[in-house]
């Protein structure tokens, strides 16, 4: 038994994945907050994490909880001015596909979470179910429904181009 690796190695290995998940769940504006909250909480709890635990699943579970906190905080401070600003184009200067963010944001929460945790977080459906509740099969159905909804309603999103037939 070699004990725990330094937390720095956890951030290096999973930082990008957690960012994708946060961005999918929270959108581009609050993704940074979600990421920070997730890793601060993870650092705090890290010494008690059992050796051999699935670190990615653990991080996604924390990100899921923190996303709920961030969303509530956003709702409390929300004003009309804080709405997403108008976008002249769906494609940002850095090439990012904002349509995809917008498309994800319209999914029902469970579908969005199932899609994000399975496809972006890399969790098997069993782990997705542990995070969002319900059975593995229900998690699989939610993800499939989410992808189907994205295909049906947002054919313009880059990921789904050519996938509409």
């Amino acid at each position, binding site marked *: 038994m*070699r*004990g*725990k*690796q*330094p*937390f*720095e190695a956890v*951030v290096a290995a999973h*930082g*990008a994945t957690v*960012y*994708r998940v946060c*961005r*999918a769940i929270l959108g*581009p504006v609050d993704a*940074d907050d979600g*990421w*920070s909250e997730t*890793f*601060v909480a993870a*650092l*705090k709890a*890290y*010494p008690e994490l059992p050796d051999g635990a699935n670190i990615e699943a653990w991080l996604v579970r924390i990100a899921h909880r923190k996303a709920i906190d961030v969303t509530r905080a956003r709702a409390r401070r929300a004003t009309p001015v804080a709405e997403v600003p108008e976008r002249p184009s769906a494609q940002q200067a*850095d090439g*990012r*596909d904002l349509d*995809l*963010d917008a498309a994800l944001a319209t999914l029902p929460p469970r579908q969005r979470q199932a*899609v994000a945790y*399975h*496809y*972006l977080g890399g969790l098997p459906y069993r782990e997705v179910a542990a995070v969002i509740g319900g059975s593995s099969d229900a998690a699989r159905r939610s*993800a*499939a429904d989410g*992808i189907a909804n*994205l*295909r049906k309603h947002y054919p313009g*999103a*880059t*990921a*789904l181009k050519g*996938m509409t037939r």
Partner: protein
Amino acid sequence: MTSDQPLEIGDLFVAAYPDATEAELGRLHERLAERADAQGLLDVAYRTVDTPVGTLLLAATETALIRVAYETEGHDEVLATLAARISPRILHAPGRLDAAARELDEYFAGRRRGFDLPLDLSLSTGFRRLVLDRLSDIAYGHTVSYAAVAAAAGNPRAVRAAATACRTNPLPVVVPCHRVVRSDGSAGGYVGGPAAKQTLLRLEAA
């Protein structure tokens, strides 16, 4: 085959999904280190510095410098040991080590003869620790023998143990084990290798 279809779509989705850039992740990491430090969660902060004896790893607890490591010791290995012996709450966080890095720069530039940093020698225990506690008595530019250090630590016959204490010094350069040499005047071994020891002795002789 049935499970393959949604996977293909999912893969396309992943491929199109925006990734954080290196710069963004770097900025997020920096903010994480600051927040962790402010909340008392950063048990060990580390950074590296480039010096004439190679890249040195510096690590500090909230109160003191606890480790200086040569590349030959394996920096990943050293961090793994710190995780096991001190705490796994370790982040690359250069800010906490600004003073240590500055003093090392000054030392290697020949503008500093002693270090003015809080030190933590708890990674060394027993007789080894007694030996290391005596090393700061050796003035810049001077050398003493392993036998003399063993005697100063209270056990004149433990010459070999004194050499082991120096070889396992957790704070080389800052705690000057390089100033301990063999009785015949030759430099002897060194945690950073014989060439690094010669470099430090030449620097201090200048």
